[in-house]
């Protein structure tokens, strides 16, 4: 009886133990979201893709249509101006001016932004927490009145559409991009196509990227020293310009929500209480909160050597001057216009504080920033003017 009891226990244990073993494993499924790698993103496989909104799935047809529109002067009111007038490929899609000039000659209070990896931007524009998608942004330069950029308005928009209707390429391309629509040539689709083109403008092939990928010789020794300075608590650059896009304000498919980040980096202090010049007050213009005065999105530093002059108003002319700006912990303006001590701006981020660098170190840091220039990006025929072909 006893032995039978033991036998029973033995059998139970063996049976259940056999059932209580399996392979240990952790399976990861990123939701099948990665399968539209079939689109030519110019994004290496080891980087997550940017988010694409469900109402505007990416396609090569939309990208190509957007590219044609981006380079088409007929899209502007006076038919003399295109997006590319202010966003030039050879300058990483900036214009080289401190402040942009629109189709009617009006000066924009801001500097034209580089269009580099903007698909990842957590918010769009220099300082705007409310515009978060490229689809929302595209109509702005088209219809903007203060200042006028492309100069499209109520009285000429039918004319603008008629110009596009008349172009045989567009007849074909709009149909291909929006196959389910019978009348696809309208502004909502123009915005979608422009946004799709912009999403494809990705740059991940700078010497720095090649160095990251394992090519020890892709960047100079000076750039390597500069890199160490950049990713260092002394300069704090990486705090705001960190991550794969050299900006905190980056959002991709592996993240569940976007951090829209804005900082005041001590450019101005007109009244001693933190005031920035009118038209350049950062997200304060939208939120009206005093602490938001002068807060802007940290821009990507990819291709930064191509996009001078710098800052939202183009008020710093060179990379050397930008580095010296941060070394002083802000900018002290003593001349009459915009005079004030930005170093003492009460809303300045705590990460912007004075530090010392030798002349050699300044040169090293600049050389590192220059190693972020991606020649294949500015020379990529895929991003070039299609009307010239």
């Amino acid at each position, binding site marked *: 009886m006893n032995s039978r009891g033991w036998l029973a226990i033995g059998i139970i244990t063996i049976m259940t133990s056999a059932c209580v073993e399996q392979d240990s494993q952790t399976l990861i499924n*990123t939701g099948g979201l990665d399968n539209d790698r079939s689109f030519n993103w110019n994004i290496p496989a080891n980087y997550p893709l940017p988010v694409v909104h469900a109402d505007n799935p990416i396609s090569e047809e939309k990208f190509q249509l957007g590219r044609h529109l981006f380079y088409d002067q007929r899209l502007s009111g006076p038919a003399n101006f295109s997006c590319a007038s202010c966003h030039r490929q050879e300058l990483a899609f900036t214009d080289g001016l401190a402040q942009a000039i629109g189709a009617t000659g009006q000066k924009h209070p801001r500097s034209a932004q580089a269009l580099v990896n903007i698909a990842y931007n957590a918010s769009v524009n220099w300082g705007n927490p409310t515009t978060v998608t490229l689809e929302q942004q595209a109509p702005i330069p088209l219809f903007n009145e203060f200042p006028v950029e492309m100069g499209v308005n109520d009285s000429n928009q039918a004319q603008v559409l008629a110009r596009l209707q008349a172009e045989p390429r567009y007849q074909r391309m709009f149909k291909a991009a929006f196959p389910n629509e019978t009348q696809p040539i309208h502004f909502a689709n123009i915005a979608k196509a422009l946004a799709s083109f912009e999403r494809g403008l990705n740059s991940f092939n700078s010497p720095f990227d090649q160095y990251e990928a394992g090519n020890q010789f892709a960047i100079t020794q000076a750039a390597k020293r500069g890199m160490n300075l950049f990713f260092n608590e002394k300069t704090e650059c990486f705090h705001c310009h960190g991550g794969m896009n050299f900006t905190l304000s980056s959002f991709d498919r592996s993240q*569940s929500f976007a951090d829209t980040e804005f900082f005041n980096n001590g450019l101005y202090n007109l009244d001693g209480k933190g005031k920035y010049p009118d038209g350049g007050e950062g997200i304060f213009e939208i939120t009206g909160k005093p602490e938001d005065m002068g807060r802007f999105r940290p821009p990507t530093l990819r291709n930064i050597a191509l996009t001078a002059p710098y800052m939202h108003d183009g008020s710093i002319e060179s990379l050397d001057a930008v580095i010296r700006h941060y070394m002083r912990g802000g900018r002290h303006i003593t001349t009459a216009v915009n005079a004030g001590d930005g170093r003492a701006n009460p809303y300045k981020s705590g990460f912007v504080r004075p530090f010392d660098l030798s002349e050699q170190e300044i040169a090293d840091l600049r050389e590192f920033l220059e190693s972020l220039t991606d020649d294949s990006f500015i020379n990529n025929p895929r991003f070039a003017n299609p009307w010239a072909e």
Partner: protein
Amino acid sequence: MRRLILSSLLWPAGLLAHSGETHDNLELEPTAQLQIGAMFSATAYSAQATDVHGLWRIPGLLMGGEALPNAKGAQVDDAHLWARYQWQPNSAVYAAVGTHAGHTELSLENLYLDYQPAKFEKLNLAAGLMDARFSPNASSHPSERQFVETSLLAEAFWGGSIHDLGLRLDWQAHPQLKFGVELHDGDFFPASKGEGAQVLFAQTEQQLQELKLKAGIWGLQAQAVQRGDERYQTGHSHSSSSFTPPDVRFTGKSALMGLWLTSSLPLSETLQAGFDYEAVQAKAEGELSETNYQAAYQAKHLGYTLTPNLQYGAWNLSYRFEKLSLDNRLIGAGAAVLAQDANLLNTAQPQRQTLQLAWQANKNLLWRAAYTQDDTLAQADERFSVGLVWQQLLHEY
């Protein structure tokens, strides 16, 4: 001679005495009105199981609660003072204060009321701050169990030991069969405070000639909202490590099922063989999240503990084999990041083996020495320990 600690204490109290905690070894007078006792365990360890950061985070497992390894060196595993006051034949109150591993502060461990309705003698109700009793491993103190180290099952699946605000209803359906329900507030892993946990169990006690057998099956479900691994988060200083693991949170349901048995058989006048076993399946379903990331999470974890032992006079030699297998699935955009941050990437089956020799010096004092081969972390680890256990009935009236 009555054994103090060994295996007898592994038995859920309710089966032996109709209710109350497991102090039967002290030959308590069932009619006594007031009993006060103390118990204490101290051990010295040659090493501590830790990963490269100095933490005990088993790869593949979301851990929590009080699942902490013993520190290297000598430490008080636990020290407890308990009292049981019975003012009517069918009502008693039980209280215990104590310290446990790594903590020096005294805390209230138990305070509950035990009540047997006069009309339904087969029912027993307990309410208050109490230990879970659905399995011998559900809740135990080093000073009342066979091995000083908490079983791996308990560490992995319910954060070491469960004592929580709750309610337990037992029904002695038959002299050899008992059913019970436990409702807990949820202040223990894998639940989160206030979200609740519910247990159902059935236990039986059999005597087949010389062979004594107790066995039970149980099921537990628990809810959690934003449950983090509190063991190593800032403010909770369980390690000297400066590394704080990423704060990954779990929201969802856990469902656990277990089966256990303990048995003993006299082989001769002085020699007795024993065998204890428990197997558990723990499933979890919900969501993992971190500041910026989230992913759906499903886990099926299995584990078991096998403990053969031999008792010779005052000597007891026991061996414990413990093994886990951990299957996790993460689905969603944040899956890769979260799997990494939650330390889930793993293909190993964590296991641990312990060989222990214990000697009952007298009725109140027990010595134990153990060797443990610990393969719960990526890096295997071995340690020795020597310790003593003291239990005393201080007052009985």
